[in-house]
């Protein structure tokens, strides 16, 4: 159970970074195959973008908060922290995004989404029975989103040896900043 919420007690550094980069590449390939793109920190949108651009966006939305967390860790922590740990743990946390993206490619979820979009565009009320896959996906993605924040906080906490209200406030501030940057871009 501990590992589910805080895998960074057991994995960090280069090993986590290599695995994280594999998750990022896999996510980019999945997004590209479904004509999706991570257009902001925690938002997936539809776009007909080239693979390199989809991959670059994945890297940007991982690296930007990771570097901010590292800088805050340098200021807050009394320990000698390593950048490889924060990069590795936050990259490993991208597994949650992969878990969010993978079901988006399921035919049932795709058809359910397209059906709802066309119903909304024509002003009709979407048939609720056909929306079941999307509803299940909604619950799954909410669970993943909560886990994504828990993992990223624990990545910050373990890598930088910071705890308590100061660490939580800094983490929340960075998450809000990332969402605002995503909205501005």
């Amino acid at each position: 159970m501990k590992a589910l919420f805080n895998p960074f007690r057991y994995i960090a550094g280069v090993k986590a970074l290599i695995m994280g980069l594999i998750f990022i590449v896999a996510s980019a390939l999945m997004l590209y195959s479904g004509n999706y793109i991570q257009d902001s920190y925690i938002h997936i949108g539809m776009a007909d973008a080239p693979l390199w651009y989809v991959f670059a966006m994945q890297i940007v939305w991982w690296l930007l908060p990771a570097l901010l967390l590292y800088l805050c860790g340098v200021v807050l922590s009394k320990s000698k922290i390593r950048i490889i740990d924060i990069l590795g743990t936050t990259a490993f946390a991208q597994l949650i995004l992969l878990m969010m993206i993978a079901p988006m490619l399921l035919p049932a979820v795709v058809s359910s989404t397209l059906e709802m979009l066309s119903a909304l565009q024509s002003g009709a009320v979407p048939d609720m029975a056909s929306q079941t896959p999307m509803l299940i996906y909604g619950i799954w993605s909410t669970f993943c989103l909560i886990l994504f924040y828990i993992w990223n906080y624990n990545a910050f906490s373990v890598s930088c040896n910071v705890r308590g209200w100061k660490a939580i406030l800094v983490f929340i501030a960075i998450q809000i900043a990332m969402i605002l940057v995503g909205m501005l871009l």
Partner: protein
Amino acid sequence: MTTKKNFPTICPSCGGQLSVKSLHCAECDTTVNGDFAIHPVLRLSAEEQQFVTAFILCSGSLKQMAADMGLSYPTVRNILDEIISKLQNYESSI
């Protein structure tokens, strides 16, 4: 076979720090009385003392310790930092 008891450092009655009043030689039955201070390392918990022992035995290599304990490097470093902080507090309180 007698079981070895853990060395108590905290008073079970009031929670204060204990000190050694008496030492006994099992060979010649001599008892030395006095007021002996407990070394800061002995004030650590049994798990923390085990950690310090393991740290010395692997020549201070946190990477080796992380591999042996099945934990990540920063987790092991954080445990060490916590012990350092405790020892510094004990030292400053003497």
